[in-house]
């Protein structure tokens, strides 16, 4: 290739050994500022309606934390996060529907009575009446599915584009399956009209605020956890696998396991996000988890900066916000703008907006920081280009 592209390894900062006092408090400081903004300022400054919208965006941001881990650090283009978001969301919604039904003395959720296929609850619905089981499933079910697919895919070294397409096909298959099972999953409509949330009335604005606080707290907690994971030994191994899988293999590690952990953790985060999405927004449906939203989860992170945790989270919030404010006012113009945004961000600013400052800085002093070109296994020389 004639034009060297900035390689990804520049975007992920390694754990730096010697830091000044200011640097040492930079990350916790920024975290604290974020926490104060989210927990303290936002609920005071925003109306109930806007706070509820923010809660929805924060759910997308939670998915973005996982995307930043799997894709930004691990190089795994996870195009099927909608699956895990959906599994978490449906697990939660199933419990809420059953709880609502039990409140009014029914055995079946309302939509099942409507389609009238029988008087008995399907066997796979029954355990979700138990709140502890349902809550555990919102995280464990996505992780189990991710572990299953990841195990088979990574073990046989199916990678790169192949993995992306398989994960995407999984999202398509789940969405199509959910639509097909009208009687037990609500079909295209999905599960809607959740009234209660573990005994609290969801129509009450006070309880909606509580849901917001839960979501914000989960996001902050997961960001802190992801940050710790990034600077750990595992985080470095993950970056190493992304940049040169063969070398890591030759050093005696199994890259399959490293990738599997990242994929499974990202899936768990997406599942948790889906579970929190349900009380905040009040619906989970196939249209929210199919191919289009699955790519949407990745796009927010790409625009903000896939390798930067904060960039990915802010990108996800910003794109979701732009989507809901602009798509109502100018539906056609927004679609063009959205497309253009993806093209420009991914094509010309692969580090996302988070890397804008360093890109500008590099332009000013081109001599000292020429991009490191990829090592021997560069995709240009790999004949099976798609698998590189």
């Amino acid at each position, binding site marked *: 290739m004639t034009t060297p592209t900035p390689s990804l390894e520049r975007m992920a900062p390694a754990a730096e050994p010697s830091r000044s006092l200011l640097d040492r408090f930079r990350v916790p400081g920024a975290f604290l500022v974020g926490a104060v903004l989210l927990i303290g300022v936002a609920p005071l400054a925003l109306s109930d309606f806007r706070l509820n919208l923010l809660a929805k965006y924060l759910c997308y941001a939670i998915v973005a934390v996982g995307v930043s881990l799997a894709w930004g650090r691990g190089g795994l283009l996870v195009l099927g996060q909608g699956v895990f978001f959906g599994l978490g969301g449906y697990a939660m919604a199933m419990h809420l529907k059953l709880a609502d039904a039990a409140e009014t003395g029914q055995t079946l959720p309302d939509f099942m009575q409507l389609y009238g296929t029988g008087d008995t609850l399907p066997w796979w619905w029954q355990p979700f009446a138990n709140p502890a089981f349902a809550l555990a499933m919102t995280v464990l079910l996505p992780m189990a599915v991710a572990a299953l697919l990841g195990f088979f895919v990574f073990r046989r070294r199916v990678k790169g584009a192949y993995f992306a*397409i398989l994960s995407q096909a999984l999202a398509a298959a*789940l969405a199509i*399956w959910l639509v097909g099972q009208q009687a037990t999953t609500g079909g295209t409509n999905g599960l809607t009209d959740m009234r209660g949330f573990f005994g609290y009335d969801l129509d009450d604005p006070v309880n909606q605020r509580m849901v917001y606080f839960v979501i914000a707290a989960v996001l902050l907690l997961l960001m802190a956890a992801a940050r710790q994971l990034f600077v750990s030994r595992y985080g470095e191994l993950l970056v190493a696998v992304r940049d040169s899988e063969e070398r890591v293999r030759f050093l005696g590690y199994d890259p399959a396991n490293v990738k599997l952990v990242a994929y499974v953790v990202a899936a768990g985060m997406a599942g948790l996000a889906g579970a929190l999405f349900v009380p905040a927004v009040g619906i989970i449906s196939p249209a929210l988890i199919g191919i289009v939203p699955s790519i949407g989860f990745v796009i927010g992170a790409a625009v903000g900066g896939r390798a930067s945790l904060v960039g990915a989270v802010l990108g996800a919030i910003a794109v979701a916000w732009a989507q809901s404010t602009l798509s109502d006012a100018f539906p056609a113009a927004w679609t063009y703008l959205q497309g253009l945004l*993806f093209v420009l961000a991914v094509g010309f600013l692969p580090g996302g907006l988070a890397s804008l400052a360093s890109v500008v800085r590099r332009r000013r002093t081109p001599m000292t920081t020429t991009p490191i070109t*990829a090592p021997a296994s560069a995709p240009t020389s790999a004949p*099976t280009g798609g698998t590189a």
Partner: protein
Amino acid sequence: MTVILNQSFTGISIGAVLLLIALGLTLTFGQMGVINMAHGEFIMAGAYTTYVLQKSISGAGVSLLLALPLAFLVAGAMGALLEWLLIRRLYTRPLDTLLVTWGVSLMLQQLARDVFGAPNVQTRAPDLLTGNISVGGITFANNRLFILGLALLCVLGLTLIMRTTPLGRRIRAVVQNRDLAEVSGIATQRVDRTTFFIGSGLAGVAGVALTLVGPIGPTMGTNYIVDAFLVVVVGGVAQLKGAVITAFALGVLQSVLEYSTTVSVAKVIVLVAIVAFLQWRPQGLYTLRTRSLA
């Protein structure tokens, strides 16, 4: 017995549609490693080309025949333009081509909505293609037979180009070892663009065929794109025969499963079967033997 035969013909005709759609991808994805999500929109461009032609030329048969080469040129030109504008900058980052072309596909869908309107449109099929032929109790729909013939013709044409022409030789050389091809005096950038032109043009031809079996709309490409990628993944990169076998195998599997279960369950089982198949052959049915570790 006739049920089985009828069902396998359905499967073969599903396979023929899959093959037509995936054929262009075997070039742009299989050979060049570019994940072009806008491929579905090139199919849509071919379909709308047929629609526009039929508006101006009244004869359904004539307009269909004219649409085939014209759709090839229209979609091919769009592909070449896309390659020139964006994709050539991304050959070192194959995964990013997916997201960039997804952005392009969003814009193209909106463009179609603005130009042709959001609702689906229909074309008239020529009289010759509306009927059925019955042979020994099996019913063959004429339009399905036409698509099958068209798919096989495209495979034949593409095979001849890849095997016998200097262009095909250059494409294979670039795919096998880009650097070596470059120092051997092959203008790799021009080869890339030509490959993309042909691959996208084939999507346009597929679009013409799809007007015979379904409505034409801004989102029609999205319905097929994932299946088409799966065909290439299972088929492997190197040769067309992988795509041919896979397309028909998946078509028949799908139709048999749809017959015994439901459409949605069939989709899930097909996906599971694909993942299981990749355990046996991770690089797909046919692979190009190389010295690369990847």
